[in-house]
């Protein structure tokens, strides 16, 4: 059944906060999360007449399908494409620093950062140093190699293994949580 303005408004009131947290957990950036949430709802407005489901559950599933699509779009393009927002003539919400901090809190990104820091500490010094240079300081592999006094091939291997070890550790953490 197509959705009207009131239905969209209800969906927003019930899911906007959750969607922001949903995006923040994935992008680690509160501002990007807010933009993606806004674009998701703008896209929902654009597609409201094509919704054929019935009931709250179907509407929620439909909304999160749009959200996942927007997230995939962000991953591909590395920025939020505001196509639906532009069509509606809307700008994404501008939030204060306090609000952005609140979103970080809702998404638990602070805990996640702490967890990443812990897992980084648990890595071997060689892998940690390689990750620090390559990922945090954004050095080229050539620079990483010269600063660590190793070959470029070894630098690449250390970064790759470090990331893999980190990913395994983080995945394990999630399972336990």
């Amino acid at each position: 059944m197509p959705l009207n303005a009131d239905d969209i408004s209800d969906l927003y009131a019930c899911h906007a906060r959750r969607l922001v947290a949903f995006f923040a957990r994935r992008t680690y950036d509160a501002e990007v999360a807010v933009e993606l949430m806004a674009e998701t709802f703008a896209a929902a407005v654009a597609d409201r007449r094509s919704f054929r489901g019935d009931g709250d559950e179907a509407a929620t599933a439909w909304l999160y399908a749009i959200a996942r699509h927007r997230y995939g779009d962000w991953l591909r393009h590395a920025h939020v494409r505001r196509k639906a927002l532009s069509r509606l003539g809307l700008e994404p919400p501008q939030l204060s620093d306090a609000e952005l901090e609140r979103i970080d809190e809702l998404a638990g990104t602070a805990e996640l950062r702490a967890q990443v820091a812990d897992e980084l500490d648990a890595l071997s010094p060689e892998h940690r140093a390689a990750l620090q240079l390559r990922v945090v300081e954004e050095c080229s592999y050539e620079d990483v190699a010269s600063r660590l006094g190793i070959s470029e091939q070894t630098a690449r291997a250390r970064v790759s293994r470090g990331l893999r070890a980190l990913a395994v550790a983080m995945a394990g953490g999630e399972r336990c949580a």
Partner: protein
Amino acid sequence: MPERDDFSDLPGLARFGEELREATRRADAPGRRWRHGIALSLVVALGTGATATATVVALRNSVIRAPDRSVVPADQASVEGSTIVAAPRSVDPAGGPPWALRLTHSETGQTCTTVGQMRGGVFGIVGQDRVFRQIPAAVVDACGSGLLLGSRIVSAPTPGATRSIVYGVAGASTKRVALVAGGITRTVRLGERGTFVVALRGYPEDSAARVELTAANGRVTRHDLGARPGLVPDIDGAPAWRLDRYVLGTRQYCAHLADARGPSDRFKASTSAGGGRASVPTACIARRANFDWAARALRLRPGQTGRRGFDRWDYKRRPPRTLLLGVARAAGTITRVTVTGAGAPRVLTPGVNGTFALLLPASVDPNDLRLAVRLKDGTTQHGRPGHGITPDLVVSRRPR
């Protein structure tokens, strides 16, 4: 469904919720749907009405046929004998017959409009094959009541010959209709029931077209048909740009210009010069920089491209221009940018996302430009292009 949120700790989300609700209502309003229907009816003469599809007319056929009345809804079915071609005419920028607006009544009493061209007293349209065909009286573009405004895009076989036909039925009580296009305001000639039609070169956004209606009581209402936030029209009517900001990774804000009309909106025959989507280099500022804003200026020539990589760009065959592009470190921190060094000072109002852009003739030397940036706290910072800019990531990140 979860409980409704009052967003007490996130007032910004509450405000956006209200804006979203209003925008949805506007989109649901009959007048809006009518206008939208027109904006989407591109390339060939085709009709859409307020409530449903109407008649699609294939110009490649030798004759435009009237629709089968049995399939036309009553609110789009014109009443025989009610058809008139309004008096206003507009010169075709592509050199074709003048543009006109035809009015008729629907069976439900609504006003229906059809945009077309007049040749030898016949109302019709020139197709992409350059053949003029009469449009039967039963063919209507759109029907509605009250104020009717629209912009119709007419594609063309050669790039640059695209036209936008801005038209409307403002009502007999409307005293004056002005069209703002390319920064120039002109009063348009009104016909029966306040009808008007104006043909413009390019897409509506290329001239940031806006209609201003003055009612008998002096009240002025403005209706944007091409202008919208973030739009940067060219200085000489070339395709407009869209100014946007994006977050690069988690560390930089970047201002960026790209074609205002995305590839999916285009028709192959009439894409802006060069085809595909034109773009320019970005101007980025680090989120933790010690600067409040960043700006860069550069000369762009047709055919210029950036290095292939993460943020590659392609200027296509856009006309030579000097571009000033800037971004604030935080949205809302800068309120005004005054640019000197290119003739008379130019004042820019940054978008809500803190971006600003200025297109200038290529004769302007980017090194001559100076900026006076007024901050929210009332202070003014002075700088020149290059201020606050974070180095190009493609350079800093490569080789991968």
